């Protein structure tokens, strides 16, 4: 479904992705874990063509999106939905307008059909009666759920989650994870979740990849990753201060 082959990306002189290769299995939830600032979001943005690598290939259903023009890239992006770290809701629009926006712009549905679909999508994420609220009137968890409703509205084949639970309390955090699991079970999309929520991430994902210094150190099932003997992986999942991962 998504395959990154020998992808290298740097900003100024700092190499963020270093000859990285990763294959995301179709129809599964794959988590990308790793310390903050290691390029997890950069990796996600390469998958949807928001960033282009200096070298390497990003294959989405066999097509290399790194060499595509805007038109072809938009055709590939039709397959995607994305939930951003801060939800990226349009702050001058109400919740209803935010969720309705892709339908209004990309379909020829009537106003009634759009209204029904928006209410259905908001119902899926457990939000009702907040149509007229603006994003700045919502809590962090509510914003993420509205973002998720918007991302899932056009039934994407692939959904990317960029740190969906950062900054949320443990209960909302668990609720969002459950929501990802439930919506995945309902819609069957391929999901890539960037997160450093350990150990919660192991509860609802099918595969986990550890990103460190621009490379995928290990990839496997949650159980395999938890049994890993790699010192970097071990230090990260145990949250130990001692080990090869340096922090400032």
């Amino acid at each position, binding site marked *: 479904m998504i395959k990154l082959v020998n992808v290298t990306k740097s900003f100024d002189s700092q190499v963020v992705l270093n000859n990285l290769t990763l294959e995301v299995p179709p129809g599964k939830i794959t988590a990308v874990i790793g310390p903050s600032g290691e390029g997890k979001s950069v990796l996600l943005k390469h998958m949807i063509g*928001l960033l282009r690598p200096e070298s390497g290939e990003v294959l989405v259903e066999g097509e290399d999106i790194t060499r595509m023009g*805007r038109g072809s890239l938009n055709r590939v992006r039709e397959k995607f939905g994305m939930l951003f770290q801060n939800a990226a*809701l*349009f702050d001058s629009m109400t919740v209803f307008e935010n969720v309705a*926006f892709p339908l209004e712009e*990309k379909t020829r549905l009537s106003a009634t059909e759009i209204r029904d679909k928006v209410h259905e999508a908001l119902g899926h994420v457990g939000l009702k009666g907040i149509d007229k609220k603006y994003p700045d009137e919502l809590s962090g968890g509510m914003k993420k759920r509205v973002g998720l409703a918007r991302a899932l509205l056009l039934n994407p084949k692939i959904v990317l989650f960029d740190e969906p639970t950062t900054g949320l309390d443990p209960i909302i955090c668990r609720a969002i994870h459950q929501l990802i699991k439930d919506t995945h079970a309902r819609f069957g999309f391929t999901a890539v979740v960037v997160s450093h929520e350990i150990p919660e991430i192991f509860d609802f994902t099918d595969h986990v990849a550890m990103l460190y210094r621009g490379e995928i150190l290990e990839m496997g099932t949650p159980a395999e990753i938890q049994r890993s003997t790699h010192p970097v992986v071990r230090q990260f999942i145990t949250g130990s201060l001692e080990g090869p991962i340096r922090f400032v």
Partner: protein
Amino acid sequence: MPNPVEQLGALSLSLLREMGRMVNFLVYALYKIISSPGKPIHILKQLYFIGAKSFFVIFLTASFTGMVLGLQGYYTLTKFGSEGMLGSAVALSLIRELGPVLSALMVTGRAGSAITAEIGIMKITEQIDALRTMALEPFKYLVSPKIVGAVIAVPLLCAIFDVVGIYGGYLVGVKLLGVNPGAYFHEMEKSVEWKDVYSGIIKSISFGVIISWVCCYKGYYAGHGAEGVSRATTSAVVMSSVLVLIWDYFLTSILL
């Protein structure tokens, strides 16, 4: 440490790159206006924002500009015994020069800065990326409607500026200083030609392009965080205003 020649070279290259990027931005925005014009509601919203909401500031500026022109013109013209020419002097100054330039500067301050801040905030909060991930073209929603809106709104605001300014001059010249009202309008009618009016319109249209282009560009490429947006906004207002004045000189020399 790089030598001064290297520094100058690097600065020149960076300026050239920036200019190239700005021109590319404008060309792509114009291409998008033609190739996928989008829904009229997006343009109407911009017309309301850039045009209708600037009405009050334009009205106020135009009134006082006209009044000052009336005062200054009267005292200069009385020296030559030609105060009857006041209407003509006020109208020509406004229609040819002050109307287009001052209305453009007012729109830059009121709407241009807001355009840069809006797009800049959308950029730093990943709202532009969100549009891209939905396979929607950001230019279609954020840039093209603003350029079309400005190209329509700025000449209309300029026309309002001219009319209000002429009546401001009338108020001071005729009502306060006693110039003959018939002479005020008759001299104006005799001296203002169609060429003066259309040169003002052409200037306004081009100023509309400059303001929307520079302000959208600066917002689209705003730096990081609140400081980045603040810098972009300042830079957009300064650059738009300076470009309006420079372009005004060149257009005037062509259209005279």
